[in-house]
């Protein structure tokens, strides 16, 4: 028994020791638990929230673009699309086959879908096809039992109701690129679009709005469990343009098949009522991605449908520049309205002979006669007396060769040469260069938009800037009233002398553009033709009876016409360029007259206030 007692005692002591060790171990675990749960608790609590909550952005609807009467020219339409959620089908391939039987998927589309399916987790929807037609959608819904995992979802897409007619003004949107996403994380959202051209690009910040945020509870695989919090974003602002979409369509129709552009402007405030460029393109194609074939067709077309000729096309102004020369001459006192110049059909200067367009000459002419007949010799002489720098300064004041405040990215400034520019090139400025500048030839290059601005400034004497925005988010923007624009500071007497000449061009039976005379009793139009050669006419050609009609299309001269009306109280200015249209008087003037008739009949500038007010009211 003693032996038994000995080992019982040893067992008891050691068991108690073991028990003590066990209690100590539990104590250590409890201490560790205290440290994790209490001491470091708040840190882990934050981490748990970070795990759980996923903040996501909600795309704001893009603001609409409206014409001056509230007609949408860029809106959002519902876009029905078919999505596939891989985890909801047992056999992805079979589902895709069944889908293809209803809505055929091209091989490359199918390859894209399969690529995206591999890349995303199985519960993330992959877009099969966007822009579903109503019929396709109905067929998908009817066949739903055969299409497990496929659902039809609605997003928005940009809609351009006027399509090509306003493409160059409105511009277009396209899916954002990496740089856009870096600038604004909102662009990572599916279906987001960013303005890539035109007003869509210029006003992109106003149009895009601000993304809302939603806080979602997600599980470990990223699946959304429920919505915790939602902050609505700010939708993009609607922007009302100065454009009259009906007028725009009408102008475009009048341009016909010509490669041409026309700008119609409210001469008193610079509002662009129409800016038509022919040919054009369908802006909605950029929304879904332009095909290679379509892109090649556009870029190879020598009529350049993607170029906004009105704002970015550069042309020598030709005779339409003569008013600027005249005003420069009048202001520098190089001429007076009553000085006369004799035109024998040419001007000899040094060893060069400068021809008038009329080889028989115009005889003795004053300013009015010079403009009426568009006598080249008269303006050679005025330019020679005035000097290039004064002409350039006047042209710049009139809106030529300077940067204009138009809301179109890609607008070209144009160019008016000066003596300094030539010297900077390391060349000498010759008087001959001044002489050809007198008839708008030589180095100068101008856009139809700047010619319209120039005409508007001539008509009103105010430094109006062309612009396209009337109101943003219902708030009228400055510049819509004539008083918003400062005077050019050119004496009315001098302006009147020039306008008088322009009046004669159209309304005098012996003027260069009698075809442009308005068939209206009380309203007269003043204008000026221009024809500019796109290559030099050689002496040989001149002597052999040069006729531009016989040239191939791309070598024919451009036809230009600028005009304003009504003459007594100028309201509308129009500039028109018909590429390779030959003579301005024949090809451009009648078109410009019809456009002006149209404008005067519609009179958008005076109709605008009532509807615009209604649009503003509807917003509030």
């Amino acid at each position, binding site marked *: *028994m003693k*032996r*038994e*007692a*000995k*080992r*019982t005692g*040893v*067992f*008891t002591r*050691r*068991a*108690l020791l*073991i*028990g003590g060790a*066990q*209690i100590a*171990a*539990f104590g250590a*675990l*409890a201490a*560790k*638990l*205290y440290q*994790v*749960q*209490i001491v*470091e*608790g*708040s*840190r*882990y*609590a934050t*981490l*748990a*929230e970070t*795990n*759980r909550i996923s903040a996501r952005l909600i795309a704001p609807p893009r603001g609409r673009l409206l014409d001056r009467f509230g007609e949408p020219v860029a809106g959002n339409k519902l876009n029905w699309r078919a999505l596939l959620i891989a985890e909801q089908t047992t056999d992805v391939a079979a589902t895709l086959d069944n889908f293809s039987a209803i809505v055929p998927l091209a091989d490359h589309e199918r390859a894209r879908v399969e690529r995206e399916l591999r890349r995303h987790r199985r519960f993330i929807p992959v877009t099969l096809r966007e822009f579903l037609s109503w019929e396709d959608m109905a067929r998908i819904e009817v066949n739903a039992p055969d299409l497990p995992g496929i659902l039809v979802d609605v997003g928005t897409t940009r809609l351009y109701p006027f399509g090509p007619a306003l493409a160059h003004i409105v511009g277009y949107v396209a899916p954002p690129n990496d740089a856009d996403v870096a600038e604004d994380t909102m662009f990572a959202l599916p279906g987001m679009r960013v303005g890539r051209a035109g007003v869509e690009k210029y006003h992109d910040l106003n149009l895009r709005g601000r993304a809302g945020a939603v806080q979602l*509870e*997600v*599980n*470990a*695989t990223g699946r959304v*469990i429920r919505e915790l919090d939602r902050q609505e974003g700010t939708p993009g602002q609607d922007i009302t343009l100065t454009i009259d979409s009906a007028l725009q369509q009408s102008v475009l129709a009048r341009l016909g098949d010509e490669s041409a552009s026309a700008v119609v402007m409210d001469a008193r405030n610079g509002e662009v009522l129409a800016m038509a460029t022919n040919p054009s393109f369908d802006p909605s194609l950029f929304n879904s991605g332009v095909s290679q074939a379509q892109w090649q067709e556009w870029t190879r077309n020598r009529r350049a449908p993607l170029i906004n000729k009105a704002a970015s096309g550069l042309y020598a102004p030709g005779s339409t520049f003569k008013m600027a020369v005249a005003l420069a001459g009048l202001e520098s006192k190089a001429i007076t309205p009553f000085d006369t110049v004799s035109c024998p059909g040419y001007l000899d200067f040094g060893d060069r002979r400068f021809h008038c367009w009329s080889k028989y000459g115009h005889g003795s002419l004053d300013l009015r006669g010079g403009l009426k007949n568009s006598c080249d010799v008269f303006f050679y002489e005025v330019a020679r007396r005035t000097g290039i720098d004064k002409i350039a300064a006047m042209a710049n004041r009139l809106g030529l060769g300077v940067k204009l405040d138009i809301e179109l990215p890609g607008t070209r400034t144009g160019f008016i040469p000066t003596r300094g520019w030539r010297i900077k090139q390391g060349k000498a400025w010759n008087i001959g260069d001044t002489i050809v500048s007198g008839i708008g030839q030589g180095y100068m290059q101008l856009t139809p938009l700047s010619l319209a601005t120039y005409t508007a400034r001539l008509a009103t004497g105010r430094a109006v800037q062309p612009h396209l925005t009337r109101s943003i988010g219902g708030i009228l923007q400055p510049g819509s009233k004539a008083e918003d624009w400062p005077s050019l500071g050119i004496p009315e007497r001098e302006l009147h002398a020039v306008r008088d000449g322009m009046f004669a061009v159209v309304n005098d039976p012996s003027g260069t553009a009698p075809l442009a005379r308005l068939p209206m009793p009380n309203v007269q139009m003043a204008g000026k033709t221009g024809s500019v050669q796109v290559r030099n006419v050689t002496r040989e050609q001149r002597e052999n009876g040069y006729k531009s009609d016989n040239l191939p299309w791309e070598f024919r001269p451009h036809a230009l016409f600028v005009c304003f009306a009504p003459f007594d109280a100028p309201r509308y200015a129009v500039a028109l360029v018909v590429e390779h249209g030959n003579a301005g008087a024949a090809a451009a003037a009648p078109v410009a007259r019809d456009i002006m008739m149209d404008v005067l009949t519609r009179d958008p500038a005076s109709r605008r206030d009532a509807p615009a007010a209604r649009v503003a009211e509807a917003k509030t």
Partner: protein
Amino acid sequence: MSVMDRRLIRETSFGLTTKLWQISWIYVVLLCALASVGYVALYSAAGGDPEPYASRHILRFGFGLTLMLSIALVDIRFIARMSWIAYAGGVVLLVLVLKMGHGAKGAQRWLDIGGMAWQPSELMKIALVLALAAWFHKASWERMGNPLFLIPPAIAVLIPVALILKEPNLGTAVITGVVGATIFVAAGLRWWKIALGLGAMAAALPIAYSHLHDYQRQRITTFLNPESDPLGAGYNIIQSKIALGSGGMWGKGFLEGTQGHLNFLPEKQTDFIFTMLAEEFGLVGSLALMALLLTLVLGGLLIALRCRHQFGRLVALGISMNFFMYILVNLAMVMGAIPVGGVPLPLVSHGGTAMITVMIGFGLLMSVHVHRDVEFGDGRDEF
């Protein structure tokens, strides 16, 4: 032992009613309480649904409880005679699992018996406790000093440990070794030998590390620096600590644990069930659970101390040590204190056969308690 202390040694066998009366019903109630905690935890782990875990858990517990009470009534001396047979059976199963078992991550741990997957290593631990207890039952203090006497039980420990390591299942092998060693210590192993053994183990650690499998080493590396691979191997530890820590003092409330319910917590119905509870019930809840677990461990120790024969003492100690080691490894694992290894929290974690093996162990413990005072020679005569 003084004459005053000597209690009456009971009859060789006594009636069923008396035996039932001798069962420690307080201990049974505590076990039921622990199983109920398991029900609550598994109900939450299924997202507030008794299916698929909680209802099956309680059914299994019912079966396990019946099994436990049945074993409690079996005469401890009969169990002692069966010890080496059980041990032999355990070793056979361990060999079988290496030959035809199945498992995951290159480890073969499971064996299908009766339509259920068993881990023979779990059964082996109990069989080893029985075998060692039977061996040392006949060991006087003097005999414990004889090294030759210690060699057979040492081999009896090393065989299953080696087989379990081969599966490989490092966690269970370590627990088996520790449980075996504890019985050696309690049986009266000399202190200098204990010190020698600890020293030898410390020396062997680097060699052991070099024999570890890649995934086991990965676990250790990850454990030392979980943030080194936050989405890979370190994910479990980090998410478990986030769940524990975010529970705070009072917890997020029943069924409100975000880490568990949103699946950030891995294996929440098995290995990480404690984390799940700690997230929802906070430090208060987890300490309460730990108190319950400690009570059960110490209760086992108390049964050992109250037993009047060496076999029963050693079995009770071994069983309670085994239970303690489960808890220690599991809790230390979810708290990120030791490398992760698939050790469940007994009676709380989901898992059928593990619960049944644990309940067999508690059955043996209870049998020791019921038969604490039976006449049971020191074995010289009987063995």
